[in-house]
């Protein structure tokens, strides 16, 4: 058991919890620096999934038999865990989905009922495509117009410009808490307050925030907050949607099916109460329970410890990267999580990515599903490294040497 601690002093025992970190890639020990895409999975989460199928597999919310009752209890306990973690008013404000994208689509699709061609909705220039495209589809259906909060050269949102975009026509604002491509932590508190002043709802995409620091939805007074379990050491295929009760009650059901009904006749169906109204069909029970174990795991390590250690890695890597000739870092906000996006001279990020993959180093290259950001900087893409609390300064040193070698080969 790991208690609150200084991660640096316990890094070896933490790393032992992640079996994949012993993998070799192309004959080299894996150095995994693509944590913003997905984080790795500790033994306790892997065991939770395995144990579910070995000991507990059954369908929830419907069986009177023992296994079904225990599985239901574990599933609903997990909802309570997330409700407590995010400080929701009640666990019925937590909906399990298949991921952040699903959560956003659930909300954007529901807003079809609330918008017409006189309305406006606001996005930011820093968004992942998954927080752009569902809303564009909403605009196509309703005729509403989408406005964009611009950003500056450091990759920070211009909140004065945001104020000017807001009006009584604004119905919903959707912004990420942390940019996946640049790591910028946005001042969402101010965005939420200003949006509420004109009566607009706010959805925050917290996929890149929840793994790195504590989020309190009540303190933020946010209307919707969404994230994915696989970004915080959980399994893929599980998303969390927090929604204020009044909003979730107002939103229409997203998918029809079992579990989400109250009574069904061929004439009319009435829907269940929250949260079941939004969880049609058999959910990813094993995944949801394991996501709760992942949440426990990061909370045992401690999000304050995680933040402190990841900031240390971020500063160390930033300093070392800047020693490389031609280094250009994109996203220079003072308020960042452990993501660094960069290019070296005019070398294509794909070329660097291909070469260092040979040396066992996993990074992301390309536009990171955020083409508007790349258009802003007029580049085809970047190399992105993103840290988790199991990464080390030694791994960063190996990366730096690999980058120097690649850069020499490609210049």
């Amino acid at each position: 058991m790991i208690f609150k601690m200084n991660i640096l002093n316990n890094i070896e025992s933490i790393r032992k919890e992640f079996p994949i970190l012993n993998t070799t890639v192309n004959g080299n020990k894996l150095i995994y620096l693509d944590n913003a895409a997905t984080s790795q999975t500790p033994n306790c989460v892997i065991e939770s999934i395995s144990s579910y199928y070995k000991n507990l597999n059954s369908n929830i919310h419907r069986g009177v038999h023992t296994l079904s009752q225990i599985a239901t209890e574990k599933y609903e306990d997990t909802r309570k865990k997330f409700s407590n973690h995010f400080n929701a008013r009640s666990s019925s404000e937590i909906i399990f989905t298949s991921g952040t994208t699903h959560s956003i689509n659930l909300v954007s699709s529901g807003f079809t009922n609330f918008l017409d061609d006189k309305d406006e909705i606001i996005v930011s220039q820093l968004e992942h495509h998954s927080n752009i495209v569902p809303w564009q589809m909403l605009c196509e259906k309703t005729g509403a117009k989408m406005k964009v909060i611009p950003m500056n050269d450091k990759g920070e949102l211009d909140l004065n410009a945001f104020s000017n975009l807001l009006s009584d026509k604004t119905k919903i604002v959707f912004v990420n808490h942390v940019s996946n491509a640049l790591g910028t932590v946005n001042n969402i508190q101010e965005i939420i307050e200003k949006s509420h002043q004109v009566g607009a709802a706010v959805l925050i995409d917290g996929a890149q925030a929840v793994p790195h620091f504590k989020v309190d939805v009540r303190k933020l007074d946010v209307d919707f907050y969404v994230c994915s379990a696989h970004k915080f050491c959980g399994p893929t295929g599980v998303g969390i949607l927090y929604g204020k009760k009044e909003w979730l009650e107002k939103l229409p059901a997203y998918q029809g099916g079992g579990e989400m009904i109250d009574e069904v006749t061929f004439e009319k169906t009435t829907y269940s109460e929250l949260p079941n109204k939004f969880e049609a069909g058999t959910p990813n029970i094993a995944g949801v329970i394991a996501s709760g174990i992942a949440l426990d795991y990061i909370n045992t390590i401690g999000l304050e410890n995680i933040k402190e250690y990841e900031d240390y890695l971020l500063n160390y890597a930033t300093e070392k990267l800047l020693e490389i000739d031609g280094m250009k870092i994109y996203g220079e906000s003072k308020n960042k999580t452990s993501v660094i996006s960069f290019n070296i001279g005019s070398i294509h990020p794909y070329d660097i990515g291909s070469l260092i993959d040979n040396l066992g180093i996993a990074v992301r290259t390309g536009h990171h599903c955020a083409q508007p950001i790349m258009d802003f900087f007029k580049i085809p893409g970047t190399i992105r490294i993103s840290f988790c609390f199991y990464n080390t300064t030694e791994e960063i040193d190996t990366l730096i040497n690999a980058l120097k070698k690649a850069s020499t080969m490609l210049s």
Partner: protein
Amino acid sequence: MKIKEIQDQIVEEFDIFDSWMDKYEYLIELGKSVPVIDDINKTDDNIIKGCQSKVWLHAQENDGFVEFSADSDAIITKGIVSLLIRTFSNQRPDDIINASLDFIDKIGLRQHLSPNRANGLNNMIKKIKFYAIAFSKTK
């Protein structure tokens, strides 16, 4: 030289290298010698879909033979394209259509590309074959 012979030659060249780092170094060298496409042909129509980097491929017929030119903003991609061009340029359309491409697997390149990147490579090969089909029909 026939397509088959060129491919065998490429496989021989790559056999010299022990590590993929050395093979990449060679690809980078090759990338610098691609018959570069004229700017006028760097059109959106000539961009190959599915590549992480931008790749343009153009073809023209010269006396019954197809000549390819290409460019990419990534040098390793250019190296790969240069091997394709070396294999297929100055060949007759029917020979290109009927050729089976084996050097990519023999030098281990396909295993070395992620599915995304291998998809880009397949699209390059498809485009080369489409050009050959088009020229064979205009004969």
